[in-house]
Each structure stands twice: as C-alpha cells, then as structure tokens.
C-alpha cells in the first residue's frame, strides 16, 4: 500500500462550546508520524493531557513523561512515571499553543514516543514547555483524545488539528 501524502491534514476539531474532551477516532494508519497542532483556551488551569489507544483510549497508568520548562524566572525539569495520559503542555484561560510530534505511531513492535512543545506567556505556571512522553504499548495508535487535567473544559474556538507525515 502506498503511503499517504506527507504533511497532510487528517482531521481538525474545533470546540463549538465548552467541551471536556476532543476525540479523534479511526486515525489512518497510512502515515509514518503524526503532528498535532493545538491552539486552545481552557476553563481551568492545569496540564493538557493526551490519551492514545487502539480501539479505545488507554486510561491505565501506562504513560511517563519528562518535562523541561522555563517560567520566566527559572528553568526546571521534572519527571512523572506511571501516569494515566501524556502531558503535552500547561494550559489556562489565555491562548495556549502546543505542537506534538508522535513518531512511528502505527507500528506494532515498539512503545510510542511523543515530543511536545508548548507556549503560554500569560500564566506564571505556564511557560516555555517541552516534554517527552512514552506510551508503553506496542499497539498501533488509531485514537487520540485531549482533556484538561483538572477536568476543566476546552472553550469554544479551541482548535486541534492532526497532520500525517509520510516517509515515502
């Protein structure tokens, strides 16, 4: 099967009201990597978490992540093992921009790695944010969701776009 075109938009979701979850299902397996671009505002301040899975979102403690961030006065790093989702950024009610690179998402032999880069200049607990996340599963990923860690909501107009990157 020929791979899909490279850097091709797969799906876009825009929150039309206050939504607790954005969910992508049936993600094409024709690409090599995925890139996700998020520009969201949230009703509460917390981490923006991303769940992945095959057929359903894995909510088990099968994720781990390491964060490097700067808050405008200090640089810091921390690590969280055995979490129930990937943490891709810190978000609040102002503009939050996040880019996620999800490598080799459709293979069935390796655990999955996600690199994230987040932005927010309007919150002392937000910042320049960079993280690496691991999902400890060899399953291909065909579902992805986004939630606020405080069970707050994505506000209207928040956008989540999924792009497919083909190596050939």
């Amino acid at each position, binding site marked *: 099967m020929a791979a899909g075109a490279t850097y091709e938009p797969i799906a876009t979701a825009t929150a039309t009201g206050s939504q607790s979850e954005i969910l992508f299902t049936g993600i094409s397996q024709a690409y090599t990597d995925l890139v996700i*671009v998020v520009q969201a505002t949230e009703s509460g301040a917390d981490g923006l978490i991303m769940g992945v899975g095959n057929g359903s979102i894995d909510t088990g403690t099968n994720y781990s992540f390491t964060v490097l961030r700067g808050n405008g006065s200090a*640089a810091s790093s921390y690590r969280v093992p055995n979490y129930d989702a990937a943490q891709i950024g810190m978000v609040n009610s102002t503009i939050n921009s996040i880019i996620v690179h999800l490598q080799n998402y459709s293979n069935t032999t390796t655990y999955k790695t996600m690199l994230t880069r987040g932005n927010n200049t309007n919150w002392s607990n937000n910042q*320049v944010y960079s993280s690496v996340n691991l999902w400890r599963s060899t399953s291909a990923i065909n579902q992805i969701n986004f939630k606020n860690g405080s069970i707050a909501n994505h506000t209207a107009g928040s956008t989540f776009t999924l792009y497919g990157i083909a190596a050939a």
Partner: protein
Amino acid sequence: MANTYTLIEAKTLGSTTASITFSSIPQTYTDLKIVMSVRSDNTNPSNTVDITFNGNTSSFTNIYLIGTGSSTASGSNFGRYAGAQNSANETANTFSNSEIYIPNYTGSNNKSYSADGVYENNATAAGQGLVAGLWSNTAAITSIGITGYAGNFLATSTFYLYGISNS
C-alpha cells in the same frame, strides 16, 4: 493531495543584509512556519534574531528558556526574540538554525508563536534557546520582518516561509 505545508517564499541572501521581510503573505493558510539559517557580521557573542509582524515592534512579550551546555536559565521581557544568530567571530562556516511556528495567523485573537533556535559552533559558545512569544494584537499577520539583534546577516543566510493548511 491537500495543499498544505507549502513553500510561500524562499530568500537566500546574496550579500550582507540588515533585515528581511516576507510581505503580502497569503491569508489562505491556517498556520505559518519559518525555517532559517543565519550568521551575523557582528563580532559580539551569539545572540538572538528578532521578529516583527506587520511592521510592528510593540506589544511583544516572551518567555525564554536557554541552555548553554553548562547552565540553564529562563527569563521574560518585552523583546521580540525569535531565534538564534551565530556571530562573526565564531567558528567559520557555522550558521545558527531556527524555526518559528505561528498558529492561526489570520485569526482575531492575539498572536502566539514559538521559536526554537540553536547556535552550535564546535566551541565553548554554543547553546539552545526556546521561546514562547506573544504579539498582543488581533490583526491578521500580513508581513513578517526578521532582524539580527546586532549587525547584519551574512550572504548565504537562508529564510523559508511555509504555509500550513488544516484542510
């Protein structure tokens, strides 16, 4: 095939140049991405590249995170940081590399951008910088200017502007 990740304009400098501008940017994409490789004729240590939107130099804020190989730091200010710039007194033929991502550049919200830059020269003065930037202006971005913090960009410095569409 969807019309996404499209090269809008490429600039390769043929001579020393103080600044470059991408003007009349199409309003038909969702996001913009700039990829650049630059070196300055200034002899001060490596520094930053600054950005302007629509010719505007005000209403910018940023938070930055830098690592030099031996230390890390974070700060915030009202600068227009958008990447790194190798200087003239560093290892010959080394150019800094930077990427700037600007989501939703035609929208009516204030404009956020991220910039990641490196200045690596196989010497002690090397490092990486990450920037969270905000232009507190609701206008659609129609032009982007890029200027070195000090000095001019040397010939062969390159600047690429891409448009990314989500449909």
